[in-house]
């Protein structure tokens, strides 16, 4: 039934749908800007300047994109196994907090501390996701819900560690310690930054790409990936074939938590919020990373351009205030854009189904 001309038409149709719905999302955003007294052309210019054109900005965009990609690749692992982990925001934060314990406490740091810190960060992220796995496989609490609840909990718990000196609160001699953040990480436990054409590109960028490609390869070509996919597509068949739901499900969830923790600890190691952890440290990297994975339909390769697009929205938004537009506009654009990216594949599926149905009734 799927002859070549139909397949080709489907693809053209899909691309056209993508173009239409993305344009529609931006038009809605433009109308919002203009009706609230701003100028959309100035807003667009500011965003392009903020994301790419101004000196040093595309480096910033890459810096933001790298953790998004890591989080997205991690989400894909859980999603392939049919597990809906939506708590990346909390796992990123807990990962960064975990890393901060090593990176700030041990002075003078050595490069070993970097590795230890990142490892502890991954472990912390995995443990945080592990709570959800435990709750699900032991007590049948849906993973969607527990991961989400843990996001709310994570910022409070991290906030708490920033109020106690024996935990992470920075101790400044002779001044009241009111600022609730950790001390700066030790210089030796920081990750290198490359200087390319006047831009500071942190080493997380190549790490993220390697990570995403690695995950894509493992999912597509390894026994491990095959088992995960089997579990996701049909848990009963998987169980019959010896893929334990509990074991592989838990592992998928732990791995995706560890990826989020990796993203968080690498952010800390490359100087996010001036090498200090705080309860707002994750700065939506978890949410954005999750959305990247959803939009890219859990394909790590496709996540690379999507992560870049989301990152440029974020860095672009930093310049919006100067153009007289509230920077929260970018949250609106991001939401509309994600909805716009959800619609075309769904519409295309629907139309395909209708065509098949029409064909069948014709024959009958």
């Amino acid at each position: 039934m799927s002859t070549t001309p139909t397949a080709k038409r489907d693809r053209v149709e899909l691309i056209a749908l993508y173009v239409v719905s993305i344009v529609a999302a931006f038009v809605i955003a433009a109308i919002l800007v203009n009706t609230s007294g701003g100028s959309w052309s100035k807003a667009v210019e500011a965003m392009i300047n903020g994301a790419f054109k101004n000196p040093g900005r595309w480096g910033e965009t890459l810096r933001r994109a790298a953790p998004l990609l890591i989080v997205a690749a991690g989400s894909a692992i859980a999603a392939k196994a049919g597990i809906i982990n939506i708590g990346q925001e909390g796992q990123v934060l807990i990962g960064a907090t975990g890393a901060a314990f090593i990176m700030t406490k041990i002075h003078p740091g050595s490069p070993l501390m970097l590795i230890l810190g990142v490892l502890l960060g991954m472990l912390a992220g995995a443990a945080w996701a592990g709570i959800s796995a435990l709750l699900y496989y032991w007590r049948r609490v849906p993973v969607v819900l527990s991961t989400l609840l843990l996001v709310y909990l994570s910022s409070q718990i991290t906030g708490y560690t920033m109020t106690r000196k024996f935990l992470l609160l920075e101790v400044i001699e002779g001044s009241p310690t009111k600022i609730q953040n950790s001390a700066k990480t030790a210089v030796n436990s920081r990750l290198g930054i490359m200087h390319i054409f006047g831009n500071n590109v942190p080493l997380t960028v190549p790490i993220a790409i390697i990570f995403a490609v690695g995950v894509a390869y493992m999912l597509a070509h390894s026994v491990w990936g095959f088992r995960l996919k089997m579990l996701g597509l049909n848990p009963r068949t998987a169980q019959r074939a010896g893929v334990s739901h509990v074991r592989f499900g838990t592992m998928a969830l732990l791995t995706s938590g560890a990826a989020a923790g990796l993203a968080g600890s690498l952010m800390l190691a490359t100087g996010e919020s001036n090498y200090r952890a705080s309860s707002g440290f994750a700065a939506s990297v978890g949410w954005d990373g999750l959305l990247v994975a959803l939009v890219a339909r859990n394909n790590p390769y496709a996540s690379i351009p999507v992560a870049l697009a989301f990152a440029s929205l974020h860095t672009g938004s930093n310049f919006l205030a100067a153009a007289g537009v509230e920077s929260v506009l970018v949250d609106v654009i991001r939401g509309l854009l994600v909805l716009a990216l959800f619609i075309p594949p769904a519409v295309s599926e629907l139309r395909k189904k209708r065509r098949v149905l029409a064909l069948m009734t014709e024959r009958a």
Partner: protein
Amino acid sequence: MLAFLGSFGDILANGPLYQSTFRLAAILVFAAVGEWVAERAGTINLSVEAMLLGGHFASAIAYTQTSNFAFSLLVGAIAGVFVSSLQAYLSHYLNADQFGIGLTLNILLLGLVAFLEPNFDLSTKLAGETKIPLLYDIPILGPAMFGQRWPMYLVYAVIPLSWWLLMRTTWGLEVRAVGEDPQAADVTGIHVNARRRHAILYTGLIAGLGGAVYLLGQVGRFESGNIGGKGIIAIAAVIFGGWTLRGAVAGCILFGYVDALRLNLPNIVGHDFNAQLLAALPFLATIVVMLIFAKHTRQPVSLARPFIRGLK
């Protein structure tokens, strides 16, 4: 030890604590009862948070413009329906991922409200207090349950109405059938995805109303952070209640009580608690409660499974 028991007694006999329990539970009940209907139809709406916020914000605008309480409540409910129609049509007409849509709507609404808020000079007031005679005189519980501002009493209408709709009407039977076995329902001629959409729209109606009631019957001043996670806790209450209405309402009361404790504990006990840990209390309690109770429940068989005819 005696002091400990004494303060324990203080907590149990504290009138204001019960009053704020009722108030905090009421908002959860609106969201949870709506979400209960949707989950019985086999869908999980993370966007119930966005529906609450939509109702909260829209009713604030409506009240600023008209100063009419009833009208503002209506506008809140309509806003909730609008948000839920996005969830309903995107996830059960187009079959996009329901969690993705729900999460995106939450982010979108929060951004939209934060973006639009400075453009409106919002000024809202609380509705008047109404004491229901006789019932008000019941010790401790009377003032809490029957001495509230009048929009709060809508909660007493919403619970039986939702029960009747889902348990005693043909529509409700079909909604429940769709949540249990969509294939069988489809064969008997029930339009599965239409029923699910209806259920989600009903969730929006009730949650939007809840957001409006929260504004005009309880907080009185709009802030975009007011809703912060209440929708999620309402979803937890539905699961805690084992997908029964009774259980969901009980869950709301329990979580409302914990939230009220968070607000009132420092006053009652006279001891300063760490603010962060107190703020974490409702979420922590939710997780612990789920840990204890979640296993003994039976969920709608097709919960969170999209229905596409011809595909199992």
